[in-house]
């Protein structure tokens, strides 16, 4: 019974330490912090934030955003985080995944993938030609990995990259659909299922959750291990425990 792990993403929403405490008390199963700051004193800020969070919660948490060196990863883990999320840093320098696994263990390494449907010509940004798919209206597309907060297309196929990241040492894939992110239209089932089927490590679905039912849907349709949501929690439309009760009623095993 692995399913039912739920994540809350905290992205520039108020005081992160207070928010983390609230989510933890309300019954969130895990927290993910992304893009927490871009200031010059990043490292020190991150260290203080991670320490602050670690001292008020007792559930696992992942910290990512701008990780590109082993020193960045160590800074996050030694401050008290359980896992490090790496995205652009891993695309630019894939062997860092293996280095991180070697030093910290596979369970600490979360490779974050921001994927977006590309209806253009298949590119080969490394790792072979992309997996070509068809949408409901028969148009051909592939899932392209984007970096730098979604700003840059890489030509890398997301499904292939997920499999490669696993081979290099990733312990978990945090998979965000850029097409769905912020839409509240539900998770991208096609993307999620393709990646879940391509790897044997846990996958966390992200992007598009507008209602607790969307979480139940993505669990049922894709076999994904966890689902992440942000805005439905931030704006208190549903408390964490309210969401989990709805999931339980839909037959998803959850911790309540």
């Amino acid at each position, binding site marked *: *019974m692995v399913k039912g792990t739920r994540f809350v993403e905290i992205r520039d929403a108020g005081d992160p330490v207070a928010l983390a405490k609230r989510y933890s008390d309300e019954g969130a199963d895990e927290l993910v912090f992304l893009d927490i700051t871009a200031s010059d004193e990043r490292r020190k800020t991150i260290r203080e934030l991670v320490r602050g969070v*670690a001292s008020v919660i*007792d559930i696992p948490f992942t910290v990512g955003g701008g990780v590109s060196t082993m020193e960045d990863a160590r800074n996050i883990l030694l401050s008290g985080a359980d896992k490090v999320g790496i995205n652009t840093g891993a695309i630019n320098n894939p062997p860092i995944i293996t280095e991180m696994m070697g030093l910290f*263990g596979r369970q600490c390494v979360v490779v974050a993938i921001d994927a977006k449907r590309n209806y253009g010509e298949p590119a080969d940004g490394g790792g072979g030609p992309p997996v070509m798919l068809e949408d409901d209206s028969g148009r051909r597309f592939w899932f392209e990995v984007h970096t730098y907060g979604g700003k840059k297309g890489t030509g890398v196929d997301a499904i292939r990259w997920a499999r490669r990241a696993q081979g290099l040492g990733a312990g978990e894939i945090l998979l965000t659909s850029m097409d769905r992110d912020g839409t509240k239209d539900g998770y991208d089932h096609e993307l999620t299922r393709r990646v879940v089927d391509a790897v044997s490590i846990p996958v966390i679905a992200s992007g598009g959750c507008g209602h607790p039912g969307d979480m139940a849907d993505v669990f049922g349709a894709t076999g994904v*291990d966890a689902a992440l949501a942000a805005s439905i929690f931030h704006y208190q439309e549903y408390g964490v425990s309210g969401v989990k009760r709805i999931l339980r009623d839909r037959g998803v095993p959850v911790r309540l």
Partner: protein
Amino acid sequence: MTRVAIFDYGAGNIFSLKNSLEREGATADVIRDFAARPGGDGNSGSDAAADAARHYDGLLLPGVGNFGPAMKAVTRDPDSKFSDYVGHGMPVLGICLGMEMFFARSQEGSEPGLGVMSGDVASLPDTMKVPHMGWNSLQIRRRGRLLEGVEDGAWVYFVHSYMARLPATPPPGGAAGDVVTAESSYNDIVIPAAVEYRNYLGTQFHPEKSGPVGRQMIRNFLGVCRR
């Protein structure tokens, strides 16, 4: 004041663990050998471990690291031995890797384990997603001291790639075959989730990451330390 020693194998972050003990009112010192005493280095010589142990009410073997290097760290100093340290019945809580070290050996390394419980440690079957990470519910077999006040079916957080294997037939003359206090099921695989034998308490999951249920177990362990 309850004072607990956390053994640091030098492998990773034990901040959460130290914090979870301090939140329950205990003092937690990080030690790297069994001669260490509060506020400084301990004596050397053959009595060093027994002498240092008098300053602590309990020992915690944390759950980050790798079996071989962790066992090497625990057995490194010939003058301050684990067996002398815990010889007077000091309560020991082993978490994850720390619990695995209670057994005779592990597939994770060639180094022998502490051997205080019968059985060994094997890789999780490759039919599972490994490392196994996530919340699972406990099936309590016998309450023991660590699980006091914990409900059957309570959810706890696991991160592991190995599991304990207990002998099918308990060895003669002891309770050693009956060490399992709780199990957890991953589909059709049942794993020992918590063990207890004499002064040794162990969890395959991480109480310090298991919310209110985990806090209860930390309090229970500190209660055992105070007895």
